[in-house]
């Protein structure tokens, strides 16, 4: 499947990337204006990875996500208003406003949760993969994480378990070159993070993470393998975060030139050029199609903000809800009544 020649796919990919970008810009703005609280990590510049990866998934497939997870959530099909409501700590948010930016889970679309703990989702993805296998299903789990996660113990344990048990998991690393201020050049002694895959006996590839097509191809390949019982794979997608790590980052650890050079490789602009016929292929989209995608993304985000703002605030009176399962004694040896 090519995203750049099939109009429907091209529109979907472009609209998804624009939606992620507009969503992140809106969040950035609301934080700056003090309308949103907590912590947030923006994925502007990285839109192609979740877009390409999630297009390789089918309904019923799962993802685990990260602190920088808005893009994964959107690409997997989340409702923008419920996401926005979650970030605004509204009762209508995905987690009643309790989870916030870093902990959105959307069971309906197979999103098993963002995670404030770096690498926290990796063994969980392996577990979800094991559950698929034990239930005789054919679903696949994509676990998103950043380069920084690849040095956490939990990452190694999760990947190894998936490998030795041949689990249907695709590990997708968004290598944006930094874990907060720590550059991959200092944090790793391997040339590509994909080399790590070999140590676990699973396939690993490094691809251009700013091109949704390339990401799609690599992840689709891995998904096919996983679905047919071939076990897990590792896809390293090279990309870059344009914004600071979180709201208070002064970018002391990277140069203006470096940031500029990556902004010039804007995944969205490049994709627009490709789909409107920059190359030899027949253009999949016209200029007006592109305009339509942009407008759709903008309108969706605006609508989400409107809806979320109108929703009731998370209620302090229910602060102690849901710490435990609802009352009802477990019955020994079985499920609860």
């Amino acid at each position, binding site marked *: 499947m090519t995203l750049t020649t099939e109009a429907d796919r091209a529109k979907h990919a472009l609209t998804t990337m624009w939606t992620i970008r507009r969503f992140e810009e809106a969040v950035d703005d609301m934080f700056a204006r003090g309308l949103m609280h*907590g912590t947030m990590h923006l994925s502007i510049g990285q839109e192609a990875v979740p877009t390409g990866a999630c297009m390789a998934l089918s309904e019923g497939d799962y993802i685990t996500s990260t602190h920088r997870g808005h893009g994964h959530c959107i690409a997997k099909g989340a409702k923008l208003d419920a996401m926005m409501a979650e970030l605004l700590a509204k009762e209508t948010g995905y987690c009643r406003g309790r989870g916030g930016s870093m902990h959105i889970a959307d069971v309906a679309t197979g999103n098993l949760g963002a995670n404030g703990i770096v690498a926290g989702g990796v063994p969980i993805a392996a577990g979800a993969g094991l559950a698929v296998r034990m239930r005789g299903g054919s679903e696949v789990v994509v676990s998103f994480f950043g380069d920084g996660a690849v040095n*956490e113990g939990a990452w190694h344990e999760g990947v190894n378990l998936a490998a030795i048990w041949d689990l249907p998991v695709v590990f997708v690393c968004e290598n944006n070159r930094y874990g907060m201020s720590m550059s991959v050049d200092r944090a790793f002694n391997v040339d590509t993070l994909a080399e790590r895959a070999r140590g676990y006996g699973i396939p690993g590839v490094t691809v251009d993470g700013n091109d949704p097509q390339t990401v799609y191809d690599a992840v689709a390949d891995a998904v096919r393998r996983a679905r047919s019982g071939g076990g897990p794979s590792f896809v390293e997608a090279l990309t870059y975060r344009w914004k600071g790590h979180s709201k208070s980052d002064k970018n002391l650890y990277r140069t203006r030139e470096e940031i500029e050079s990556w902004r010039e490789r804007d995944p969205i602009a490049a994709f627009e050029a490709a789909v409107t016929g920059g190359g030899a292929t027949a253009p999949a989209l016209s200029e007006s199609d592109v305009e339509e995608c942009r407008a759709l993304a903008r309108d969706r985000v605006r609508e989400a903000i409107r809806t979320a703002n109108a929703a009731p605030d998370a209620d302090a009176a229910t602060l102690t809800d849901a710490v435990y399962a609802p009352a009802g004694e477990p019955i020994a040896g079985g499920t609860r009544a």
Partner: protein
Amino acid sequence: MAAPAASPVDTQAANTQTMTIGKALNNGLRAAMEADPKVLVMGEDVGKLGGVFRVTDGLQKDFGEHRVLDTPLAESGIVGTAIGLAVRGFRPVCEIQFEGFIFPAFDQISSQLAKLRYRTQGKLKAPVVIRVPFGGGIGAVEHHSESPESLFSHIPGLKVVSCSNPVDAYWMMRQAISSDDPVMVFEPKKLYHSSALKAPVDTTATPDPLHSSRVVRHGDAATIAAYGPSLPVALDAATAAQEEGRSLEVIDLRTLSPLDLGPVFESVRRTGRLVVVSEASSEVSLTSEVAARVQQECFYSLEAPVQRVTGFDTPYPPAKLEEHFLPDLDRVLYAVDNALEW
């Protein structure tokens, strides 16, 4: 012309600067590194960035990358390598970026660091300091606002302290680094840069012992015991109560393990009433421990059950609701009233 000899007053002035808690911790680290080349700082983003709260600001620039080590994301590795360094004569100070990220290191802390001395009957010692920014009130969320200090205070072999003001911040850092035991320093992150708490720190003074609590305000109607981020609300409550003619004694616990409850017992024997304040959840916590020991030691002096004002027994709530979760003036005063009107 020869410079006039410095008078004692001048010398003291030269050694005394007014600073925030964050700066005092930074100065404490700096002084320890100057005094002993074996003192190292390690952690995530502690070098060039100076830590997310800037507590290690400037240290890498001044002491070099070999003494201030930026590590990858690997909390277990950070604490584990610190133990290895410590058993070979170094004095590493690890920064855990936020308290919520300490748990990958829990195994190294609990299974190795805390037990090394006992297990080897002193043949190995691990003078590691673990700095942990903790507590809420900064508009953050789960993992970034929690209070897990009770978990660590529960582990024999570890020492745990918490500072509430710049003077203690400076000296606790220095004393923790000099200690031959592993010490966890829980730093109240919401107070790091509080200008209201700025205070003069005399670096030539003789500090209180590291593991001692301290009466910070005298009173006789009731006692409030608190530590770290809860000190300001305890003191505010005492001020508010004073306006109503009730004088409250406030004790800064300072050391969480071992607890130094002597001053608390002494106080409760006079006041007969105790309120313990902490942001941590109440179940099976430091506040339960204080309550249990006070009822054991001061049973016949108590005029009311020990009151506790704590975070709820829930995970940390979203930023927008955290004010409900955290002990505030109203809740502390309500507990004081309860104790007084029992």
